[in-house]
């Protein structure tokens, strides 16, 4: 879009009839007209670039905003919330003066185009969000979804994504402590690569993205700005893939984790010396986003000289510089007398830093290029006043038929032999199999504070070496459940993540989410989205865990076919002393196994129905959040008071899956007895929510039972830790060797 003469504000005012490529930049006609109305003239090319990226679905949340408001409106009262939705990431008080920030984001489309770099830059982006809050990043998690495990393209996408997440996170020195790997044909052309990060800081170190104080300098630091990923986020995130239009696929960004590691260290050093007034990372929409958000959140205006931006490619136009999504850059607002020290720290870490502008006492964002003013806008109109859509939504007409196709009526195993075969098949199925081949490509140990990592129910990090204070995180989502009922599916995702945190002994505090859906222009998808948000907001209110932030990824769709609605929920918890954490592995022969919660015949969306019948239909398991809360309290008390030595939550795959995992991890088997009132099949495979299995030392049996009884939680003794087999009395016995082969052989067999 280089033009002569330079398209300055003045020039734009004088040439109202010049046609701008607003449609190519993804704006709708009425949106363009809004811009003209706001400015009172046509925008300059640079202004158009800014509005178009900032008003994209990805940056403006225009389709989702009206629904997301519920997270604020229904937010439970929580003393833990220090910073809520709207900032780079939410911040939660975890006690002892510590605050924790965490968030999950998607990098789905880029990871399909270039799996390694797409996933790597996804990690890079979320980590910068965490640094921008003032925190030291301490861990990452990676909820992933791929197409069918045996599809040839999965063999291209998955290894690349995993190598990219590892390549970036490992190089940053961030332990990877959790995530998910799910295979389903619905994700074939739309893999989901979500990445989450956690950071820790002292309360007084919280930083916000705002530019205040006239005269303060705006410093851009980190990588030079190049032409990569121009329009990347906006176009990639707002268009469905269409093979007929490959030209629509813009360049993918390449990440430099080494540069980001330097960025972390020099930013933290600057924080430590209290040099920073406001700070913003450069992610989607690059400088357009950083400058407009900093300026609109601050008290004054901002003036930026684009000529001062260090470039990697000297031929870039000002519009391209504003839109560039070059990775590993940050923007800081620094008082004039502290600028020298800030630049010194950057130099110490070999990070390029340049003053590109300053905060003004006006209220405009003004950007200059070669002496001409090419942007003159009210920054709020760019950053916050984007379009808001009330997209039509409607429950799809196929929903009734889907729910009527009851999984509880599927043929069940007729003999003990068949039951046993199905157990082996289940634990060896790609979704239930061990993900070790993947997770061992991630560093779990770096930073020396990892208390729990894969394959524990939640990852746990020690925050304070003296007191043992720690935080835990789990991410969960089940697209099959959500497809059957998006409201319940979202609550089940929340319930599972909550349960996973509590199972390890940590108290759930707050929620982040990543909402992955198809096209919002499809009313059926929009209904799924609306229902899922409503479910999650209601659920968070009931559990007392506020949503602190999150991310929406729409257009995950190939042609007419949308992915399963896939709300991924991350729950953050706190534990006073990590020495009290509860692991999954069986610890000692002879310990008693108890099943907590109620087991019903619930097979809709279950792993069993998928693995044995390739079926998806009926209703997902019922949700009882009061029960989840009670279960959580019991698990936390039992851990604190040393009543249990291991615990594992029950989720997809049911009881047998959980017991097999605990057995294989501990290298000890179990003898199980089917409780009265249940048949073996339901006992083993049902996916009723609100349940966990715990191993209780004999000395604690009475105390533990009394506690459950007193609080009214159903508890059933189901067996004992023992031997080299998993045996279901009167039914079958499977050796740990055979189970291990089935459980651990599948993924390497498919991918190695």
């Amino acid at each position, binding site marked *: 879009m280089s033009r002569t003469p330079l398209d300055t504000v003045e020039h734009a005012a004088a040439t109202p009839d010049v046609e701008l490529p607003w449609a190519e930049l993804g704006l709708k006609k009425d949106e363009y007209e809004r811009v003209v109305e706001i400015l009172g003239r046509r925008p300059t090319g640079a202004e158009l670039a800014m509005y178009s990226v900032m008003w994209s679905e990805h940056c403006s949340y225009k389709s989702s905003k009206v629904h997301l408001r519920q997270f604020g409106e229904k937010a439970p009262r929580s003393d833990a919330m220090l910073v809520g939705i709207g900032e780079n990431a939410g911040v939660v008080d975890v006690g002892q003066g510590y605050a924790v920030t965490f968030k999950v984001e998607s990098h789905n489309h880029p990871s399909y185009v270039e799996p390694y*770099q797409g996933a790597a830059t996804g990690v890079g982006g979320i980590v910068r969000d965490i640094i921008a809050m003032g925190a030291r990043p301490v861990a990452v998690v990676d909820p992933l979804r791929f197409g069918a495990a045996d599809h040839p393209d999965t063999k291209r996408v998955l290894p690349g994504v995993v190598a990219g997440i590892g390549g970036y996170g490992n190089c940053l020195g961030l332990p990877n402590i959790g995530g998910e790997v799910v295979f389903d044909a619905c994700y074939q052309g739309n893999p989901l690569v979500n990445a989450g990060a956690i950071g820790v800081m002292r309360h007084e170190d919280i930083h916000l993205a705002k530019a205040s104080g006239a005269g303060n300098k705006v410093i851009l630091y980190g990588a030079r700005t*190049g032409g*990569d990923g121009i329009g990347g986020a906006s176009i990639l995130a707002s268009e469905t893939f269409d093979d007929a239009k490959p030209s629509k696929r813009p360049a993918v960004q*390449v990440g*430099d984790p080494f540069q980001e590691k330097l960025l972390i260290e020099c930013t933290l050093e600057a924080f430590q010396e209290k040099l920073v007034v406001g700070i913003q990372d450069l992610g989607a929409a690059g400088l357009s986003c950083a400058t407009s958000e900093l300026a609109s959140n601050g008290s004054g205006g901002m003036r930026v000289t684009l000529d001062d931006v260090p470039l990697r490619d000297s031929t870039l136009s000002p519009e391209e510089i504003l839109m560039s999504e070059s990775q590993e850059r940050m923007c800081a607002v620094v008082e004039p007398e502290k600028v020298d020290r800030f630049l010194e720290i950057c130099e110490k870490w070999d990070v390029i830093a340049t003053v590109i502008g300053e905060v003004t006492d006006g209220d405009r964002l003004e950007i200059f290029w070669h002496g001409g003013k090419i942007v003159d806008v009210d920054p709020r109109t760019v950053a916050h006043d984007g379009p808001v859509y009330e997209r039509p939504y409607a429950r799809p007409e196929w929903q009734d038929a889907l729910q009527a196709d009851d999984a509880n009526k599927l043929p069940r195993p007729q003999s003990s032999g068949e039951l046993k075969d199905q157990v082996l098949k289940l634990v060896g199925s790609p979704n239930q199999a061990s993900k070790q081949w993947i997770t061992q490509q991630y560093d779990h140990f770096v930073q020396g504070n990892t208390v729990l990592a894969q394959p524990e129910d939640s990852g746990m990090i020690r925050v304070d070496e003296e007191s043992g204070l720690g935080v835990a995180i789990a991410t969960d989502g089940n697209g099959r459940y959500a497809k059957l009922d998006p409201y319940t599916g979202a609550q089940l995702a929340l319930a599972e993540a909550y349960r996973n945190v509590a199972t390890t002994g940590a108290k759930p505090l707050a929620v982040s989410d990543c909402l992955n859906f198809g096209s919002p222009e499809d009313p059926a998808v929009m209904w799924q989205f609306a229902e899922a948000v409503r479910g999650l907001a209601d659920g968070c209110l009931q559990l007392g865990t506020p949503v602190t932030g999150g991310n929406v990824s729409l257009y995950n769709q190939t042609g007419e076919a949308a992915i399963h609605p896939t709300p991924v929920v991350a729950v953050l918890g706190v534990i006073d002393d990590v020495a009290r954490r509860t692991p999954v592995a069986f610890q000692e022969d002879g310990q008693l196994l108890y099943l907590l919660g109620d087991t019903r015949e619930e097979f809709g969306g279950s792993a069993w129905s998928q693995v044995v019948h390739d079926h998806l239909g009926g209703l997902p398991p019922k949700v009882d959040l009061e029960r989840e809360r009670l279960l959580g309290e019991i698990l936390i008390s039992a851990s604190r008071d040393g009543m249990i030595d291991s615990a594992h939550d029950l989720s997809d795959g049911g009881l047998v899956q959980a017991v097999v995992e605990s057995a294989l991890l501990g290298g000890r088997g179990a003898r199980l007895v089917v409780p009265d009132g249940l048949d073996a099949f339901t006992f083993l495979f049902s996916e009723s929510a609100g349940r966990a299995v715990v191993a209780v030392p004999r000395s604690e049996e009475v105390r533990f039972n009394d506690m459950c009884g007193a609080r009214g939680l159903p508890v059933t003794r189901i067996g004992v830790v023992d031997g080299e087999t998993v045996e279901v009395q009167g039914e079958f016995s499977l050796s740990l060797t055979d189970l291990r082969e089935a459980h651990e052989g599948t993924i390497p067999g498919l991918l190695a």
Partner: protein
Amino acid sequence: MARVVVDVMLKPEILDPQGQAVQRALPRLGFEGISDVRQGKRFELEVDGPVDDAALARIHDLAESFLANTVIEDFTVRVESEDAVAEAVK
């Protein structure tokens, strides 16, 4: 038997952190006068049978679909002359 070489380099507009790291180290090693460094991959394929146009076309396909990701990388295919092979071995 002939050797075909496929060179794969990041597209010029794409960040090359590896090349940059090398370049930034040069002054420390006492090297001046190198204004840019880019690092890529070199594949040496030993081809059975004649390297005719058909064979080269197939290797071109291979490079395009597998050895390079053309979203971010360019590649070139060339037959390595006997001389070059001899020199490289030296």
